[in-house]
């Protein structure tokens, strides 16, 4: 089916997320959609899938105008979307998720659904257990489930919003194979990403968004530099690696074992030294977060020991780690990092070692203004944090870190930031490394990991690789490891704890 988007506009308060976008997509093709963070990709796709209503503009399907007041309309029109973060029901079973949204009937079509699921899975070489609970699946498997569901509902236009974030190498290959096959069957595929190489291998055509505008389209063979220029308005380079001399050990992890009802990690041995940056690679839910949280005392390890500056901190709480100069930066800023409803200055009042009982407003205000300037946060001391932009929230979070820390643990330090902000963030971090702080971070951006860390740990299904030297590792090797290659025993074993 042929899709045409005409003069689409979408506002979010101050943000002009989609600005007069006109784009037409022939059927049977794989259309790429490129753009930096916050460019408006998801917004546009949500509009096409009926999740958001455009403030202006229209959508045509095979030339006929199409009014989408809700996803229901889109589904009826044969448009299905896989959202950036899988929108499914973790506490429910695979089969329930599969049946959910089945349009007809009072009873549950249990039998048909099961058969359909299995046969479809078979066609695409996916392996899904209908009776497993979704929260025991990997992101990749959850995507596969979504794809099959949409196909079962007879979707002819499939939208994939950054489907490759956090799935394994093999799963990625399976996915691409599936997409090509669907296209060959005459279905229309829209593939959203900010990874050029994916566009290169997969897409028949690509459109680039920047700051809500459609800045251009391109066809194979692609000129990557042009694409980058379109995406960022200029060529941006991360600059060369910054090397910092390492000092004495800060964090020592000895034969550590961490576990929750889904996952068990064991036998982690590691030493992090002053000024050193260690990156944790691996697909979502492979155990990086567990290790990070354990090293901050947020999870209590079930075995092994954690030493900070030569003191055994095993089993101590985060607050005692904090006192030893260990700080933790969560990925989800609004959920775990900042306090919605409180202003910037209130945050700074909270962050510092408090002096006395009564708040000295003047002093707090002064320090807040300093920080706002130094970290060039776009916001005022009295602006509430939720009104800040993603990047500025991240800046604020970094500004809140106490001085002279020994170790900073971070989840996705630059997620949701455009390249410039990301680079800026890392510069400030490296600054701290120079003051002999060690950094221990996880990220799903391999480039970031390779570029900024000294050593890398790769996680797969709860098992941890030996530390790799970042200088001598390539993206490919990393990809392989993340995908589970090079990890001896077979991958699924790790999840047995769950069942």
């Amino acid at each position, binding site marked *: 089916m042929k899709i045409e988007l005409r003069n689409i506009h979408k506002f979010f308060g101050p943000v002009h997320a989609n600005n007069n976008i006109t784009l037409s997509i022939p059927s049977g093709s794989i259309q790429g959609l490129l753009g930096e963070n916050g460019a408006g990709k998801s917004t546009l796709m949500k509009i096409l899938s009926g999740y958001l209503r455009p403030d202006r503009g229209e959508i045509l399907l095979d030339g006929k105008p199409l009014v989408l007041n809700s996803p229901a309309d889109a589904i009826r029109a044969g448009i299905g979307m896989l959202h950036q973060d899988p929108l499914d029901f973790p506490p429910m079973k695979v089969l329930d998720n599969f049946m959910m949204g089945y349009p007809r009937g009072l009873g*549950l079509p249990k039998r048909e659904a099961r058969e359909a699921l299995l046969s479809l899975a078979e066609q695409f070489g996916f392996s899904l257990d209908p009776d497993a609970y979704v929260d025991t699946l990997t992101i990749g498997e959850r995507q596969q489930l979504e794809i099959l569901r949409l196909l079962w509902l007879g979707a002819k236009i499939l939208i994939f919003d950054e489907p490759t974030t956090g799935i394994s190498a093999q799963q990625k290959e399976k996915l691409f194979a599936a997409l090509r096959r669907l296209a060959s069957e005459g279905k229309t595929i829209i593939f959203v990403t900010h990874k050029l190489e994916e566009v290169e291998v997969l897409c028949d055509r690509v459109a680039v968004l920047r700051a809500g505008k459609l800045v251009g389209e391109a066809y194979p063979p692609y000129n990557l530099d042009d694409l980058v220029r379109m995406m960022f308005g200029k060529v941006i380079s991360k600059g060369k690696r910054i090397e910092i001399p390492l000092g004495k050990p800060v964090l020592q992890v000895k034969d550590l074992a961490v576990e929750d009802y889904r996952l068990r990690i064991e036998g982690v041995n590691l030493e992090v030294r002053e000024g050193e940056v260690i990156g944790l690679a691996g697909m979502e839910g492979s155990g990086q977060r567990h290790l990070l949280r354990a090293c901050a005392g947020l999870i209590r390890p079930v075995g092994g020991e954690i030493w900070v500056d030569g003191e055994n901190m095993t089993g101590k709480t985060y607050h005692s780690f904090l006192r030893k100069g260990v700080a933790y930066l969560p990925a989800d800023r609004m959920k775990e990092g900042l306090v919605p409803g409180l202003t910037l200055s209130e945050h700074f009042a909270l962050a510092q070692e408090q002096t006395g009982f009564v708040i000295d407003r003047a002093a707090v205000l002064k320090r807040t203004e300093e920080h706002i300037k130094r970290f060039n946060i776009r916001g005022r001391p009295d602006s509430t944090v939720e009104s800040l932009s993603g990047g500025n929230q991240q800046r604020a979070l970094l500004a809140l870190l106490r001085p002279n820390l020994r170790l900073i643990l971070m989840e996705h330090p630059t997620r949701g930031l455009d390249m410039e902000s990301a680079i800026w963030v890392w510069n400030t971090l490296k600054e701290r490394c120079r003051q002999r702080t060690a950094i221990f971070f996880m990220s799903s951006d391999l480039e970031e990991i390779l570029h900024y860390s000294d050593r890398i740990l790769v996680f797969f299904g709860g098992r941890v690789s030996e530390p790799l030297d970042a200088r001598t590792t390539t993206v490919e090797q990393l990809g392989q490891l993340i995908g589970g290659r090079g990890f001896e025993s077979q991958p699924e074993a790790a999840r047995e704890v769950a069942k």
Partner: protein
Amino acid sequence: MSSHEIIIGLAGVLFTAAPIVFATIGETFTERAGVINLSVNGTILLSAMSSFAVAVSTHSIFWGFVAGIVVGMGVALTVAFSSIALKQSQVAVGFVLTLMTRDLAYFLGNPYMGLQGPRVHNWPIPVLSKIPVLGTLLFNFDPLTYFSFILIIAAWWWIFHTRPGLILRAIGERPAAAYVRGAPVNKLRYLYTALGGALVGLAGPTYSLSVKAGWKGTISGLDGIGWIALALTIFGGWDPVRGAFGAYLFALLQWLGLVLQPYMPNIPSQVLQVAPFPLMILTLLFVNIGNTEWVKRTLAGLPPDARRWATRILRWMQVVPPSALGTTFEEE
């Protein structure tokens, strides 16, 4: 006590529990849809009063029940509207409503104090009610009690074994995900809140026209029932069958409280009457304690086997509320 007395007593328990079953299942529907309607206590009073007033003035039990149900829906929809359309806290609005409807009931009900009103009659089921034990235990009630039995099964079937039921669970669990699957989340929330409200409203006339026929203002003895129903909803883990079981347990304890009175002169009569509440707190404790930080930490400290077992037990006891309970969802 003779077995005969016990059976009759138990039948009485089923009878007196009916309205609590209605309210509990009503709230279960509402909360499954992600809306928490805290106004139950006041709603029951107001609907009990209105339905009595209407029944008295129209001499029609039917219109009495209609009135009660309408009131229930009205209050529930106020909660839904202020949450969905006006983005106000469901807890806050529900709480205000529970107090206001209560006073409304007392104020407007004043002229109807102690009047004699119509009352629902028993419908012994022809053949079945003659069966020795079961007959008295199950088939010798007024229609409402039968309806309460049917409702338990129906609600359970609807929520867990139908497609709409699956969607119901979905919108309370993750509205956004349900929405992209084509579910009109907020429409459904209105719908189920209204349905729940109707059932809560039904509890009113079930009291004022059957179980506790009449209206006695502040001494009608209905103030508090609604809170009990709310508690039972959690107690039942948002499952109609378990919820109903809770309701029966409550009525049973009340009954035991009075039949055991002579046998245990040393226990204050209040003890058994109030027992359901500590019991409820205890259950809530059991089903929630697994999620607390300190428990997780202590578990991690245990030797592997002990840990495994403890984890299993805790996970087995856990009931997980609908994740989106009390939140609002914005459709574009």
